[in-house]
C-alpha cells in the first residue's frame, strides 16, 4: 500500500538549524515541511525589502539549502516552506545561485504568490472590506497609516499545484502551517476540494507536525520519561490514501512518539476543537482516534471535516509605539525586599523626572518567586536571590529611552547586592503589533499565482 512520508524539520522561526539535516540523513522521507515565519516576521521582511529589492525572505533557509541541496536532489526529498516570505522569487534566484556554485542542476523550484495584500489594503478598505481586528473588533482603517505588512493565509491548493508542476522546492509566503503537509497529500492522492474528511485528516496531520519536536517528546509534561531529548527526532507522518496516518520518527533518534505526546500536541493552540478553521476545511478534532500501534508509532484515524468557510484569515502587522525591558539580579539576605525597593526607586525617580507610564503600560516582575505565574506556585519566603525585571511601553520613544537610563543607577544608588546589569542601557524597540482579520476568499484566490522554473 502506498504511503507518503511527510516530515517537519522547522517548527517556527528560530528552531534547530540541524533538525532538517538529520531528517534527510536519518532515513527515508518524501516531503519536508519547514516553517520560518512567526506572526510578525513578515513586517521585518517588509523593511528589508524596502531597503533592498532582492531581500525579504528567510535567509536561514538559504543556509539550509547550501547544506542540504545535494541530498535533496539525490534522494528526491521535496521541500515545502513559507521561507519565501515577501519575496519568494528573489529566494528562488538565490537558490539557483547556490545550485550553480555547487554545480547542481536539473531540478525545479515553485513559487506561490498572491498572499501579500499590503499594497492592496487602501483599495480593499475603500471597497468596503473592514478587515476588523478579530480580537478588538476595530476596523483596520483606524491603523491604516501604520500597517507594515498584511498577508492572507493561503491553503494547500497552490502548494499542490506547484508540486504537480514538478517542483522539488515550493516557496510560499504566508501559507498555513497545516498546508505544508496537506499540499503534498493533495498532490499525491488528488483529494478533491470538497473531500472534507480527507482534507481534515491532512490538516490534522499538519497540525501534529507543525511544531516540530512538540509531537515527539519536546515540551512534554512528563519530561523525565523522554529518552535522549537532546537528540530528539523530529516528527514524520506516514499517510495512507484514506487519510489515516501514523506519526513516527527516525529509528535511533531520541524523544518518543506516544498517544500522550501526540495528544498534547493536538490540544496545543487548538481553540474550538469541533471547528479548527483553515483555508481548506473545518477540521473536527473531536473525531480523532489515536492508537499506539508500535514503539514510537501512533495511528491517527476517524477524522471528519466540514466545509471550509468563505473567508481567509489575514495576518497584518502595524506599528504600535515603543517598548523596553531591563533586569538586574538581587542577591543576599532579604532579596525580595531589596528587589521591591529597587523597583519602587526606578518608578519614583522616573516620576520625579516627569516620566510616568499608565498602569497597563508598565510591568514589574520578580522572577524566581513565581513571577511568571503569580498566585499559583508557592514561592519561598526568603529566597537567596531574585531577578527583578521591569518593562514599559509608550507611544513616546523618548519616555521609553528615559526609562532605560534608570536601571544602571540601582547598582550604586539602590539597595545592596544588586548585580547582573550587563549589556548596556535597554533601548526603545518598536512594537510591531499583530492584527488578525478575515477577508472574503475570492479577493485573494482570484489573484494567486503559481510559477515553476527549472535550473
Amino acid at each position: 500500500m502506498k504511503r507518503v512520508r511527510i516530515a517537519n524539520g522547522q517548527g517556527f522561526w528560530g528552531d534547530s538549524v540541524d533538525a532538517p539535516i538529520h531528517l534527510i540523513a536519518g532515513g527515508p522521507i518524501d516531503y519536508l515541511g519547514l516553517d520560518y515565519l512567526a506572526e510578525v516576521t513578515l513586517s521585518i521582511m517588509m523593511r528589508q525589502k524596502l531597503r533592498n529589492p532582492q531581500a525579504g525572505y528567510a535567509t536561514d533557509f538559504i543556509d539550509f539549502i547550501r547544506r542540504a541541496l545535494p541530498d535533496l536532489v539525490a534522494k528526491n526529498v521535496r521541500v515545502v516552506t513559507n521561507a519565501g516570505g515577501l519575496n519568494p522569487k528573489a529566494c528562488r534566484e538565490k537558490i539557483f545561485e547556490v545550485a550553480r556554485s555547487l554545480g547542481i542542476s536539473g531540478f525545479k523550484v515553485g513559487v506561490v504568490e498572491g498572499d501579500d495584500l499590503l499594497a492592496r489594503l487602501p483599495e480593499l478598505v475603500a471597497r468596503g472590506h473592514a478587515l476588523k481586528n478579530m480580537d478588538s473588533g476595530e476596523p483596520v482603517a483606524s491603523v491604516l497609516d501604520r500597517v507594515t505588512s498584511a498577508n492572507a493565509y493561503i491553503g494547500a491548493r497552490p502548494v499542490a499545484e506547484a508540486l504537480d508542476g514538478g517542483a522539488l522546492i515550493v516557496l510560499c509566503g504566508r501559507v498555513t502551517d497545516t498546508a505544508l503537509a496537506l499540499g503534498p497529500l493533495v498532490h499525491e492522492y488528488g483529494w478533491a476540494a470538497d473531500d472534507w474528511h480527507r482534507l481534515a485528516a491532512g490538516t490534522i496531520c499538519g497540525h501534529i507536525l507543525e511544531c516540530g519536536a512538540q509531537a515527539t517528546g519536546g515540551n512534554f509534561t512528563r519530561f523525565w520519561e523522554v529518552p535522549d531529548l537532546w537528540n530528539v527526532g523530529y516528527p514524520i507522518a506516514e499517510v495512507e490514501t484514506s487519510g489515516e496516518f501514523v506519526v513516527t520518527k527516525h529509528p535511533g533518534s531520541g524523544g518518543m512518539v506516544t498517544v500522550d505526546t501526540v495528544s498534547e500536541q493536538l490540544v496545543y493552540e487548538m481553540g474550538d476543537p469541533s471547528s479548527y478553521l483553515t483555508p481548506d476545511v473545518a477540521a473536527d478534532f473531536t473525531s480523532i482516534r489515536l492508537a499506539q500501534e508500535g514503539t514510537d508509532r501512533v495511528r491517527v484515524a476517524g477524522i471528519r471535516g466540514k466545509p471550509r468557510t468563505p473567508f481567509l484569515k489575514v495576518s497584518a502587522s502595524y506599528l504600535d509605539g515603543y517598548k523596553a525591558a531591563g533586569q538586574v539580579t538581587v542577591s543576599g539576605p532579604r532579596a525580595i525586599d531589596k528587589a521591591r525597593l529597587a523597583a519602587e526607586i526606578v518608578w519614583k525617580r522616573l516620576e520625579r523626572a516627569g516620566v510616568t507610564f499608565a498602569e497597563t503600560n508598565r510591568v514589574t516582575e520578580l522572577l524566581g518567586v513565581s513571577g511568571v505565574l503569580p498566585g499559583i506556585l508557592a514561592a519561598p519566603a526568603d529566597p537567596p536571590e531574585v531577578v527583578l525585571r521591569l518593562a514599559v511601553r509608550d507611544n513616546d520613544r523618548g519616555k521609553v529611552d528615559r526609562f532605560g537610563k534608570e536601571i544602571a543607577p540601582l547598582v550604586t544608588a539602590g539597595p545592596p547586592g544588586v548585580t547582573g546589569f550587563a549589556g548596556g542601557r535597554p533601548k526603545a524597540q518598536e512594537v510591531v503589533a499583530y492584527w488578525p482579520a478575515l477577508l472574503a476568499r475570492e479577493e485573494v484566490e482570484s489573484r494567486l499565482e503559481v510559477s515553476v522554473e527549472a535550473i
Partner: protein
Amino acid sequence: MARVALTARVPLSRIAHARSGDKGDASNVGLVADSAARYEVIRREVTAERVKVHFAQVCRGRVERFEVPNLLALNFLLHDSLGGGGTASLLTDAQGKTHGQGLLEMELDVPEELL
C-alpha cells in the same frame, strides 16, 4: 449500606498532563487525562469557574472550556491573559507557555482507587 468513597487531595499533575500556548491575547491550555476514569474526574472538577479562580492574578477575562472526550482532554481559552499578546506584551511569558504547568498545580479531590 452507603459506600464511602475515599478521596485524596492531590495536584492535577497526578492524573493529567497539559500543554499551553497563545491565541492572540488569550492563552490556550489543553489538559489531557491519563485514563478514561481520570477524564471523568477532570470533566467534573476542572470547571471554567475553578480555572478562572486558579488563574485569578493571570487571567483578566473570561475562561472558555471545550470538552474533547475522544482525546480524554479539556481545552481552555483564558481570555485577556497575556498583557496584550505576542510582540506587544511586556510580560516574560507573553505566549502563555507556562500556563499548562500552572494549571497542573491545581489541587482537587480524586478517588484513591484512581491514584
